């Protein structure tokens, strides 16, 4: 990649630094769209549960590219770029629906569910005049397609032929938690999203950074739902690209460090912090292993989460260098009973844009975005537990997850 050298000078400390310029430079953003989002990565495209019947589709933005994900008549899944081959018009705009074919509203070019062009109005002209030339080849004017793989009911797609198979991409170390969370069919409980005034990578740094969790999110720390003093780990995928952070709330030891060290998230200014109605955190041991929080990411922009009994996927849509949209799909499992569904809906208070635990996550990115604007030649510092992307067990006092993100980023960007 010859253009890479001029794009950015990465600090010599490597992935323990992230130059501020990567969060706002339009040229870097454009390169990310090509090298990462069109590169050898798997993108979350949705759930099998969203496509129950042939012709059912959902729309999703993969980076800057609008994509249609649909169920084919033979039960397979196709992902087609949502753009007519004629003029580039978006073909569908209702986020979910059911179709028999794809027809562009502009000039009614129409395609089958494999994206093959089937008809062009007035192709033979009128009265023998006009129309398409004999050289026009229908077969060459189909819709662009992504490679698709579905694993545990979750659908992924990639633009690149070089992307390894999905299971290999996630990697052997992180597949056990992926299987743990996807072994039963999902049921969608709802959707919402957050528009964030920050570069997409600032939210993803947050998602791969357990260091902040028990400090920034005082609500959960004060209620002793999550503390670093609980049994937990950060496990990194083989190449360091993806991470899994987990903890078991019932195993807290010496948790009073939050109070004795006077962290804001400890007792602090409000000792009597407690719940007047504790039913919001009523829960059951979701997978029978005592793990109460498990956050798994897949580079570049996917999160699979268990926070108590809230199960969700999150993905990020970059919206220019200084904006992003974080899209949540709130889930249960198809075999949940009414009580379990009720608990999930009530625990919904913990997540999303109003989440007791998560409402700060989008907000901090905008504080960083504003903070770094004037000093693009400087860089952030991530040296907690060193400069490597090694996993850490019996502790989460490490920024290895964030360094893992930057490892993948540098590799694909060639910087």
């Amino acid at each position, binding site marked *: 990649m010859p253009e890479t050298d001029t794009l950015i000078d990465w600090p010599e400390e490597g992935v323990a630094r992230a130059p501020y310029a990567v969060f706002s430079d339009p040229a870097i953003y454009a390169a990310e769209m090509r090298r990462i989002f069109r590169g050898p990565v798997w993108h979350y495209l949705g759930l099998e549960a969203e496509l129950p019947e042939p012709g059912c589709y959902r729309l999703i933005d993969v980076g800057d590219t609008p994509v249609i994900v649909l169920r084919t008549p033979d039960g397979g899944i196709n992902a087609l770029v949502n753009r007519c081959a004629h003029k580039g018009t978006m073909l569908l705009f209702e986020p979910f629906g059911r179709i028999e074919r794809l027809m562009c509203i502009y000039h009614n070019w129409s395609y089958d569910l494999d994206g093959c062009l089937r008809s062009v109005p007035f192709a033979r002209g009128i009265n023998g005049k006009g129309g398409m030339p004999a050289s026009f080849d229908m077969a060459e004017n189909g819709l662009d397609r992504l490679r698709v793989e579905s694993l545990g009911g979750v659908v992924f797609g990639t633009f690149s032929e070089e992307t390894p198979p999905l299971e290999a991409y996630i990697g052997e170390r992180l597949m056990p938690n992926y299987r743990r969370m996807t072994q039963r069919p999902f049921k969608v*409980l*709802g*959707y919402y999203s957050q528009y*964030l005034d920050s570069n997409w990578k600032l939210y993803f740094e947050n998602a791969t950074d357990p260091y902040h969790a028990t400090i920034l999110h005082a609500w959960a720390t004060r209620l002793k739902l999550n503390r670093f003093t609980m049994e937990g780990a950060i496990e990194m995928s083989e190449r360091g690209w993806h991470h899994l952070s987990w903890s078991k709330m019932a195993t807290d030891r010496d948790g009073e460090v939050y109070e004795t060290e006077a962290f804001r998230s400890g007792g602090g200014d*409000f000792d009597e912090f407690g719940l007047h*109605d504790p039913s*919001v955190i009523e829960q059951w041991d979701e997978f029978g292993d005592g793990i109460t929080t498990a956050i798994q990411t897949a580079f570049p922009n996917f999160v699979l989460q268990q926070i108590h009994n809230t199960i969700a996927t999150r993905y990020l849509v970059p919206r220019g260098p200084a904006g992003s949209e974080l899209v949540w799909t709130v889930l249960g499992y198809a075999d949940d009973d009414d009580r379990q569904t009720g608990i999930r809906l009530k625990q919904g208070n913990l997540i999303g844009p109003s989440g*007791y635990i998560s*409402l700060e996550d989008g907000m901090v990115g905008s504080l960083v975005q504003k903070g770094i604007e004037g000093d693009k030649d400087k860089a952030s510092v991530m040296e907690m537990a060193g400069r490597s992307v090694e996993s850490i067990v019996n502790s989460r006092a490490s920024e290895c997850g964030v360094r893992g993100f930057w490892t993948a980023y540098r590799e694909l960007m060639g910087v």
Partner: protein
Amino acid sequence: MAGDVPAAVAALMTEYVHAIDDDRLEDWPGFFTDPCLYRIATRDNEERGLPASLVYCDSRAMLLDRVVSVRHANVFEPHRYRHMTSAIRILDRDGAEFRTRSNYLVTRTMRDGTMAVFSTGAYRDVIVVEDGTARFRERVVVCDHGMINNLIAIPI
């Protein structure tokens, strides 16, 4: 149309938005019966029959917990709301219980002076009047938008 809007109902609607806009959040749970239902939902989810909410409280104590968290646990850039409400419609009446719908629009003003429309949608309410005082048995805030600008800390 199931009749005119009773004075107690109109007063509840008015006092509710003033309490929030004046930052008297501690008064907010008192506008509800106990138990109650307060939800912030999205129009898309509601229309598709999807039950997830952004906020879900079914007791006054849960409403109070939201206020305590906003005041003492959650951190966010400070901001204020201004509610515009209109078009109160009584859908039906059963004795002292009214089912109503009304529209709202909320602006959000940050401490640096930036102001923007933050949310618009409909209140779907069940209101009970007792001894001349109206309270919400249910207030479901149905946002027209599924995308939230950053976060919702203060109730709508």
